[in-house]
C-alpha cells in the first residue's frame, strides 16, 4: 500500500506543497498507525502531516481528490449500480472457479478485491516503467503495456472459456467480467495519464528557472499563476533573510556600567545583570507603484510583490498612482491578494500616467511619512505624457529620505526618450536601475533591506 502514497507525496510536491523527507516518514508512521481502511481518515492524517498553510491545504484537497479520486480506494458506486448484479453463488460456483483459475485478475474482480487490484495495477505500472512517459500520444501505448503486465490476456481467455461453456451461470459471470474488464482498462489509462501529468510537472521546474529570467512584460497568460507563486516565495525568502539580519543586530554584550549602577544596593555584587541592546532600526518602506496603462502588464506583478512585502515586513506604506495617487496600504493589508489587485486596478489602473500630478498629491498629503529612516521605492517607467514632471518633489524625497530607489522597467537606452522624464529624476535617486525580470526585483530589494 506504500506505493500509491509515495506517488501521492510526489504529486503533492509538484503541486507546490513542500514535503520534506521527514514529513514523508511521518506520513507513513501516521498511516501505519491509522491504517488504510477509511478514506477520510487517511486524508485527515495526511493533511495534518503535510499541509502547513491555508494555501497548501487548498492544494492538498485538490491533489488528494485528483490522485485518489478514481484509483478505486473509494468504493465507486457508479459501476456497482448496473452491472454488478453478480450473485455470490455464481462467483463461488465450482465450475466457474475452475474455468477462471488461469487468471488471477479474474479472481480479484470476482472477489471484488479493490485493494489488491490497485496494488497490482501500480506494480504493473512500475514494471513497465510508466514514469518514463513524456508525450500524451504515448498514453495508449503505455496503458496497453500496463494491461498486458496485469494479465489481461489471461482474463480474456477466461472470459472466452466461460462464454463457450454454455452454462447460464458461467455466461453471467462472463458478462460481469467483461464489464469489469472495461473498468480495469480505464483504471490503467488513468494511472498512465496521472504519471504523464506528473512528469510534465517535473519539467515545470525548468520553466520556473526560465520564468525568473523572463521579461515581466511578456509573460504568457498560462504562466502567470506560476509566476505568482514565484513572487510570493521570493518575498518570503527576503523576509526571512531580513529577519536574520535583525536578529544579529540584537545580540548584546553585558552593559557593565548599567549593571554596576543597578547593583549598588547589593554592595556591587552583580545580582541583576543588564545587557547592552543595539537599537533595531526597522526599515520603513514607502512604495510608490505605477499602475498606468503603459506598465499595466507589469503592474500586477509589482502589486503582487508589494502585497507580499506587506505581509513580510511590518512597516510598509504603499501607494499606487496613474494620473492620481491613492494610499493602498489598507487595501493590501485587509483584502486577499486578488481582490486587492482588482480593486486597485479598477480604481486607478490603466489610465494614462501623470507623474507630476501624482507626485504633487504625494507631496501634499503624505510627505510627512518620509523621514531619514525611510526608504522610498518607486516602481514606474517615468513616462508622464509630456506633463509637468515635478522633479522638485523627487528632490524633496531625496533630501528627506534615507534612500530613494527607482526601479524602471524600461531599458537604460530608452530612458529620456520621448516622454520619459527618467533623466530628470535620475540625479535625485540614490539608486536607479532597470527592473523587468524577477531576478532584478529580488536582488534590488535584497540590497534595500540589507543596508543598515
Amino acid at each position, binding site marked *: 500500500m506504500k506505493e500509491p502514497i509515495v506517488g501521492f507525496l510526489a504529486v503533492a510536491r509538484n503541486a507546490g506543497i513542500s514535503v520534506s523527507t521527514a514529513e514523508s516518514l511521518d506520513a507513513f508512521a501516521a498511516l501505519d498507525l491509522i491504517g488504510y481502511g477509511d478514506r477520510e481518515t487517511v486524508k*485527515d492524517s495526511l493533511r495534518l502531516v503535510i499541509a*502547513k498553510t491555508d494555501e497548501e491545504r487548498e492544494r492538498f484537497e485538490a491533489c488528494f481528490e485528483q490522485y485518489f479520486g478514481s484509483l478505486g480506494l473509494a468504493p465507486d458506486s457508479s459501476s456497482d449500480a448496473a452491472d454488478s448484479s453478480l450473485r455470490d453463488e455464481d462467483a463461488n460456483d465450482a465450475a466457474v472457479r475452475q474455468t477462471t483459475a488461469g487468471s488471477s485478475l479474474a479472481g480479484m474482480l470476482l472477489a471484488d478485491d479493490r485493494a489488491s487490484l490497485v496494488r497490482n495495477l501500480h506494480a504493473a505500472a512500475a514494471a513497465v516503467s510508466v514514469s518514463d512517459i513524456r508525450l500524451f500520444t504515448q498514453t495508449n501505448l503505455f496503458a496497453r503495456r500496463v494491461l498486458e503486465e496485469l494479465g489481461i490476456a489471461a482474463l480474456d481467455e477466461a472470459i472466452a472459456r466461460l462464454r463457450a461453456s454454455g452454462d447460464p451461470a458461467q455466461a453471467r459471470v462472463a458478462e460481469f467480467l467483461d464489464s469489469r474488464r472495461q473498468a480495469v482498462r480505464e483504471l490503467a489509462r488513468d494511472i498512465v495519464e496521472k504519471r504523464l501529468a506528473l512528469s510534465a510537472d517535473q519539467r515545470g521546474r525548468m520553466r520556473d528557472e526560465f520564468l525568473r529570467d523572463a521579461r515581466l512584460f511578456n509573460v504568457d497568460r498560462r504562466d502567470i499563476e506560476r509566476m505568482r507563486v514565484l513572487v510570493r516565495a521570493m518575498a518570503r525568502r527576503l523576509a526571512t533573510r531580513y529577519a536574520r539580519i535583525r536578529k544579529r543586530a540584537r545580540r548584546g554584550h553585558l552593559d557593565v556600567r548599567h549593571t554596576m549602577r543597578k547593583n549598588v544596593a*547589593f554592595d556591587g555584587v552583580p545580582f541583576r545583570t543588564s545587557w547592552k541592546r543595539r537599537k533595531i532600526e526597522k526599515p520603513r518602506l514607502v512604495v510608490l507603484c505605477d499602475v498606468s496603462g503603459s506598465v499595466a502588464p507589469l503592474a500586477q506583478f509589482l502589486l503582487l510583490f508589494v502585497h507580499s512585502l506587506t505581509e513580510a515586513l511590518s512597516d510598509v506604506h504603499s501607494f499606487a498612482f496613474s494620473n492620481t495617487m491613492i494610499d493602498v496600504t489598507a487595501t493590501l493589508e485587509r483584502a486577499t491578494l486578488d481582490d486587492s489587485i482588482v480593486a486597485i486596478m479598477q480604481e486607478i489602473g490603466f489610465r494614462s500616467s501623470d507623474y507630476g500630478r501624482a507626485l504633487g498629491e504625494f507631496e501634499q498629503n503624505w510627505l510627512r511619512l518620509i523621514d531619514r529612516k525611510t526608504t522610498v521605492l518607486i516602481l514606474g517607467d517615468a513616462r508622464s505624457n509630456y506633463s509637468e514632471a515635478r522633479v522638485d518633489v523627487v528632490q524633496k524625497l531625496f533630501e528627506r529620505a534615507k534612500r530613494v530607489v527607482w526601479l524602471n522597467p524600461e531599458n537604460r537606452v530608452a530612458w529620456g526618450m520621448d516622454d520619459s522624464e527618467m533623466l530628470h529624476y535620475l540625479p535625485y535617486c540614490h539608486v536607479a536601475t532597470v527592473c523587468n525580470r524577477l531576478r532584478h526585483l529580488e536582488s534590488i530589494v535584497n540590497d534595500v533591506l540589507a543596508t543598515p
Partner: protein
Amino acid sequence: MSTAAAIAPASIEAVIEGLAESGYISNRQSATAIYLAHHLRKPVLVEGPAGVGKTELAKATAAYLRLPLIRMQCYDGLDESKALYEWKYGKQLLYTQILKDKLGEGLRGAANLKEALHQLDGIEDVFFSERFLEARPLLQALRQPAGAVLLIDEVDKADQEFEAFLLELLSDYQVTIPELGPIAATVAPIAILTSNNTRDLGDALKRRCLHLHIDYPDAKLEERIIDVRVPGIEERLRTQLVGFVQKVRTLELRKLPSVSETIDWARALVLLHVDELDAQVVRETLNVLLKYEADVEAATRQTPAMLSDVRWNGRPN
C-alpha cells in the same frame, strides 16, 4: 488526578468521545490530530481564528488523558529564563552569605591559591545544582513523571529566537542546561502549540509539527457545542441563534464572532429568558457577539433579512 494512569487513546472515535466527556465537541480532524500526536509523539500546531477553541482543545486533551496541563503563554520578549529555567539567584546569594564561615573553613586547609581555587570549584557545583534550579513551564513539562500536556499558547507572539529554541525541545524532548547538561523528558509530553498567525512561523518549526487548522464550526457542530456548554437552552432558540451567528459570519466584518462569543451570547439570552430571536432582542444583545462599533452597525443593518431567514429555517418543517 495523576493516580489514575494516563489513558492511551485506542481509536479516533475514542478520542472524540473522551474529548466530549471533558466538554469539548471536536470534529474528526481535531480528534485525528490528538490521536496522532499521542501515538507519534509529535507536537501539534493549531491554527485558526481567535476564539474557535484552540486553547480549549489542549485543556480538554489534558483532562481526557488525565495528564497535568502545563501552560506557557508566549509574548514578545519571552526568553529562556522565563520559559525553561532560571537559577535562584537570591537563594544562591543568601546561602553563600550564610555559609560564608563554612566556606572559609573549607578553604583554610588549602596550601596555596591554586588549591583553594580547586576546592572552590567543587563548592560552586553545589550552588549550580538542581537545588537552586527554578523550573519554568517547559522544564516542568519535561519532568512530569507521567508525562504532560504542554500548551504553548500563541507561539506566534514570541520572537524568532524563542522559536528556534523550541526546536530542540520539540524534536528530541530534551533541553540543555549548560551547568547540568542535557535533560531529557521522562515521558515525552504532548505539545500543543497555538498560533493566531500574526506572523509566519519558521519552516523548521512547521516541519516538526502536525498541522491542525480549526475553522469556525458548521451549524451542526456549533449547535452541539452550544448544547453542551449552555445547558438548558431551548432547542428552537439554539437553532435560531446558531443560524444567525452563521449568517453573521458571512458578512464582511472586522472581527467575526467566534465560538466563545456564540456561547456568551447564548448564555446571555438564556439569562434574559429569551425563547425566540426577534429584532429587538438582537439589537439589544448584539454587543455580546460583536466587539467593534462598526461591526455592530453593519450587522444591525442586515439583521431583519438574516433574522427572517433564520426564523423561517428554524421553524419545524
